[in-house]
């Protein structure tokens, strides 16, 4: 078991270099501003391949409309809420090693400790992660990924990218996604044990569960948007910037830093 784990680890290390280099190169290309306004406007979208992205977005919308959303609705209808929460808790717990690795890579000892504690508490007391005991004890969940780690290391996000199936992204986060595929311990373990299909089941279940929690919200946003693509782009980038700042509930309360889109232009000032 150990030998096969080591064997699958070496290709990971070999991939890390080129993946990182690609991310940094791509992220650096901000693209030329489309209009004179873009050059001055700090809120300009940085979306040089917008036409291509829009087409991929249409493809993703169709995929969602005909495959993902109906599946998510069926999932919601078939399983009671506590069962769906169990699924989510279990999936979150499975991600703990990756979250822990990224906490460590960002030199965040406190968050690493939290992730570590959650993993053991929920795995042992929470029946393998199905029950989220840790939150009840006040140890909140937080998410981390390689994309956020690259950001903390100083890699800029780069131009907006709409990935087929995976949705809104950018070169840095795409590199992070790639790194996740090749280094997730659960995935590696399953592959080593010959159960290659299990990681796919996990990804699909995760997508369906997440989708099922946002059905009305996405419907509402789509219905009332003037430009759904642009709205999604804006929401994604702001959320991503907030995640990277670790702008979670634990850091909230009086004294939380003023939220803003990075880079931070002056927040709306009152004209005199």
């Amino acid at each position, binding site marked *: 078991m150990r030998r096969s784990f080591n064997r699958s680890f070496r290709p990971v290390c070999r991939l890390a270099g080129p993946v990182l280099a690609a991310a940094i190169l791509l992220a650096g290309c901000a693209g030329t501003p489309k209009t004179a*306004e873009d050059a001055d*406007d700090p*809120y300009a979208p940085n979306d040089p391949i917008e036409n291509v992205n829009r087409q991929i977005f249409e493809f993703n919308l169709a995929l969602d409309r005909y495959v993902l959303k109906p599946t998510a609705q069926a999932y919601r209808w078939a399983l009671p809420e506590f069962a769906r929460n169990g699924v989510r808790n279990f999936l979150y717990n499975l991600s703990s090693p990756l979250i822990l690795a990224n906490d460590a890579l960002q030199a965040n000892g406190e968050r690493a400790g939290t992730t570590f504690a959650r993993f053991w508490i929920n795995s042992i007391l929470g029946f393998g992660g199905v029950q989220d005991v840790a939150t009840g004890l006040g140890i909140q969940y937080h998410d981390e990924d390689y994309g956020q780690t690259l950001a903390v290391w100083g890699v800029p996000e780069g131009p907006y990218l709409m990935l087929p199936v995976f949705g809104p992204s950018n070169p840095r986060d795409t590199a992070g996604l790639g790194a996740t595929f090749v280094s997730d311990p659960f995935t590696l373990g399953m592959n080593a044990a010959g159960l290659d299909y299990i990681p796919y089941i996990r990804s699909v279940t995760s997508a369906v569960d997440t989708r099922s929690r946002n059905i009305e919200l996405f419907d509402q946003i789509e219905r009332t948007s003037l*430009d759904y693509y*642009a709205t999604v782009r804006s929401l994604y980038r702001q*959320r991503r910037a907030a995640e990277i700042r670790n702008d*979670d509930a634990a850091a909230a309360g*009086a004294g939380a830093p003023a*939220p803003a889109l990075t880079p931070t232009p002056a927040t709306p000032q009152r004209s005199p």
Partner: protein
Amino acid sequence: MPMQIRRLFLALGFAAAVVTAALPTGAGAVPSNPESLINDLGSKTISLLQQKQLAEADREKQFRSLLHEGFDMGQMSRFVLGPYWRTASDQQRQEFVKLFEDYIVTAYSGRFSQYSGEQFKVVGSRQEGDGALVNSQILRANGGPPIKVDWRVGKEGADFKIDDVVVEGVSLLVTQRQEFASVIQRNGGQLDALLKLMREKTQR
């Protein structure tokens, strides 16, 4: 004799309270008014949401009056249009401010209709220039982490008004600004195209 002393204490206490409320707070301390503005709006919104049997039109009307009461729609409109405000005619600006309000009511009052026992709580604030950044949380009834909502409050004359709402790091104004800019740019930089689209979306 004791009765008079008690009344005296009461009067003094009352006077102290009034004077404290009217005093400008010391430098660095957070003015209490922005927090009470948010608190006030929050509880009014919750009671609006709790009236489940309210007709759509009535809910929108009440939502609109809450908007007027608490938000600086003029300032928000100006920010949202960004560089296009400068080049817009007076008539376009007027129409945009009106349409922007209609759009907010249409787009956001519907999102509140899924209210199910959430609680609203102001958790603190920090002074920012003349105004403040007020932090609050929405606590969900079925557990799960609370939703962070921050309110950027500024001074308008003698009043405090909301300039922006930030939910989990996502700013209402930034989102709308970027969406509207996209519509204008995809229509050859024509503000009228945006106004037309907004008119269509907000008409029933």
